[in-house]
């Protein structure tokens, strides 16, 4: 991101146009963080104020508050501007407590682990 003059902010790929806006940041590990952009640099390192993590498991979601976050640019996948006039999530989704979402996450992980171990047990059968 090269430094641009004030009028170039509208045309360039600088994150300057996102300053002080509420954003969705997708990370490489799949996490979805939300917060207000306060600072950035040429590596896409980012400072998010009032950051929270939106955990989604199926139709359940929970926002876990995190506070002030500095995110290293190499972990950033995408930075999206949240349109305040639109619904952030589809209406069929329900907000739940952090305990419940953690239980749902564990259940999902156990299901995938079970699928993985079942597959391993079947591998010796060598179906083509």
């Amino acid at each position, binding site marked *: *991101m090269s430094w641009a003059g004030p009028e170039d902010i509208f045309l360039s790929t600088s994150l300057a146009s996102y300053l002080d806006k509420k954003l969705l940041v997708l990370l490489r590990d799949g996490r979805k963080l939300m917060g207000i952009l306060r600072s950035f640099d040429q590596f896409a390192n980012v400072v998010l104020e009032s950051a929270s993590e939106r955990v989604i498991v199926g139709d359940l979601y929970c926002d876990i508050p995190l506070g002030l976050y500095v995110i290293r640019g190499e972990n950033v996948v*995408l930075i999206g*501007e949240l349109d305040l006039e639109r619904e*952030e*999530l589809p209406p069929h989704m329900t907000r739940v407590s952090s305990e419940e979402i953690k239980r749902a996450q564990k259940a999902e992980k156990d299901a995938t682990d079970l699928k993985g171990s079942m597959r391993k047990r079947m591998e010796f059968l060598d179906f083509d």
Partner: protein
Amino acid sequence: MLFFSYFKDLVGREVTVELKNDLAIRGTLHSVDQYLNIKLENTRVVDQDKYPHMLSVRNCFIRGSVVRYVQLPADGVDTDLLHDATRREARGG
């Protein structure tokens, strides 16, 4: 520099960016930079049901390092111009 110049000429066109995490986003190319970071406007996620968190995102910044493909309209490419530019770059480089 070649692809940076190439993408600069595509600003304003509709493209689909496929990321390494398999997320595909369609939108209007707003801008690009030397790292091939991309800014898209008027975005829609290709498989919206799989990515509910992206519902209200209409503009986004995509870090160049996470892009797998940029899908363009067939008439978005002047292949002759691109061939010439590539040959020039290969000669000079």
